[in-house]
């Protein structure tokens, strides 16, 4: 069989993600200390796991409504109201998805016609660009910069807009930089968008993990709810990555379209996970506080540790990553990270895995114990001393 004739050209043209390439190197090595993982090191809180077990004991093993259990959608709406002052109708403005990733895909596919432009700030999570391609859209890559604390500025946004711009991806709090947008930043962006028909895909998966002010959703600004699709999920806030559960929040007209894609492609999110999520939303606020406190201590510890060994690092105020500037050491991000891996058995991710403008930086995850981080910092220090 000549597969080049049968495979989708669109899919074949997709590049494997840069982060995957680096992880493949890592998988072949022994005794490496890694600060690479993009998921919490906490196990899902026991009361949440217990709720899932109970649902299985009671035989809740059927499909749920396509949109997700009504009780869960109601709890999601309550949660958004409680924590971010946003109102969504659980009947027709919420879709429960298989993780935040499906939610991103739904949002993009529901909006994009062939040739539509989608503004994607980088460095950012690796999925936006390929998903836009798959939907026939054109990603317009917009770098953010350290001098702006890796925020998307209104000026940069304005410069990227053309008559074909359909959607802005707004991934804050940001993976990999840890950047957040405050109210002023969001107001400036909203000012640019209000007079247009451009929609916003606000990826708020890290909304609970902020270390200064509380996260503000762009949808809560005047006139923005109608043009925003919020995607979020349970993975980061409740340490529930393996449960694969996320959701979209959007005006009914948009939700209606995302619903169709979800219905035909997925049917419904896993039932057991949905029952766990109800418990998380009802009784999990304290878990969030506990985990955020813990991440915050590690964040301060690692930023302080990096600075004390001469690695400059902008202060990340969200997610669980630091994005130090390694440009001054005179090698590319990839070379820096590969040498660190091979010579000192310490793994961090080259910034370029998250877009070309990540050159000169590396992503370090602090979803690890203090002991682990301490051991990693010692290795890093040894490397820095050697190459200085």
């Amino acid at each position, binding site marked *: 069989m000549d597969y080049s004739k049968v495979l989708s050209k669109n899919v074949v043209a997709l590049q494997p993600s840069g*982060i995957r390439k680096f*992880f493949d190197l890592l998988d072949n090595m022994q005794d490496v200390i890694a600060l*690479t*993982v993009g*998921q919490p090191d906490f196990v899902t809180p026991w009361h949440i796991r217990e709720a899932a077990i109970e649902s299985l004991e009671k035989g809740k093993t059927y499909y749920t409504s396509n949109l997700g259990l009504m009780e869960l959608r109601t709890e999601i709406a309550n949660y958004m109201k409680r924590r971010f002052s946003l109102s969504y109708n659980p009947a027709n403005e919420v879709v429960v998805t298989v993780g935040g990733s499906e939610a991103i895909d739904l949002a993009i596919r529901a909006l994009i016609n062939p040739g539509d432009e989608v503004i994607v700030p980088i460095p950012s999570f690796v999925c936006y660009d390929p998903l836009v391609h798959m939907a026939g859209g054109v990603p317009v890559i917009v770098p953010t910069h350290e001098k702006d604390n890796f925020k998307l500025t209104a000026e940069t946004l304005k410069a990227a807009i053309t008559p074909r711009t359909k959607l802005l991806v707004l991934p804050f709090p940001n993976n990999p930089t840890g950047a957040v947008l405050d109210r002023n930043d969001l107001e400036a962006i909203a000012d640019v968008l209000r007079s247009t028909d451009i929609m916003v895909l606000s990826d708020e998966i890290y909304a609970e993990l902020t270390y200064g002010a509380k996260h503000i959703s762009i949808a809560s600004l005047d006139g923005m709810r109608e043009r925003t699709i919020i995607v979020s999920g349970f993975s980061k806030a409740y340490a529930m990555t393996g449960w694969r559960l996320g959701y979209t929040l959007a005006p009914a007209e948009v939700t209606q379209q995302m619903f169709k894609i979800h219905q035909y492609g997925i049917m419904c999110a896993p039932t057991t996970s949905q029952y766990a999520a109800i418990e998380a939303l009802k009784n999990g606020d304290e878990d969030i506080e506990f985990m955020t*406190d813990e991440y915050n*201590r590690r964040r*301060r*510890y690692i930023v302080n540790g990096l600075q004390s060994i001469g690695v400059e690092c902008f202060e990340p105020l969200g997610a669980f990553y630091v994005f130090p500037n390694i440009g001054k050491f005179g090698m590319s991000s990839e070379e820096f990270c590969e040498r660190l891996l091979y010579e000192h058995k310490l793994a961090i991710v080259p910034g370029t895995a998250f877009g070309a403008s990540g050159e000169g930086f590396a992503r370090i995850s602090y979803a690890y114990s*203090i002991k682990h981080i301490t051991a990693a910092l010692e290795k890093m220090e040894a490397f820095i001393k050697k190459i200085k």
Partner: protein
Amino acid sequence: MNDSEKILKLLENDSTLTAEQLAAMCEKEVGDIKDMIEKYEKDGVILGYKTIIDWDKTDREYVSALIELKVAPQRDRGFDRVAEKIYNYPEVQSVYLMSGSFDLTVILEGRTMKEVAYFVAQKLAPMEFIVSTATHFVLRKYKDKGVIYGSTEVDERGNYC
């Protein structure tokens, strides 16, 4: 929880944290942390630093028991005098005054069951004001001081995103 309670909580979970580490984690001055710890030690808030060891994984012979004691309280002294006499024995790990159907819980450690049984029969039971004893041997520890026994930390998280 205020800042100093948080620092106590951190030390309760991991007493190997240094003042420098605590300072970085809590955005405090190292000197302030040292002063705080010193004061807590002086005031008896921090009473000691111990290590949790699973002796079952060593060759050391070891057994522990929980003993329920019924005690006749003494005029003006209540249970304090008896408790004091008991906790002075080095074999005694813990002594708690309890509510409910008995008065003192004593946790004992010994090399063998026989050794523990002798201690109860010869030292505790004959003691003045002690009305009765009931000895329960610990067969297996699953969790102690918040630490689960037998589990070693393996990072099962893969690199996927």
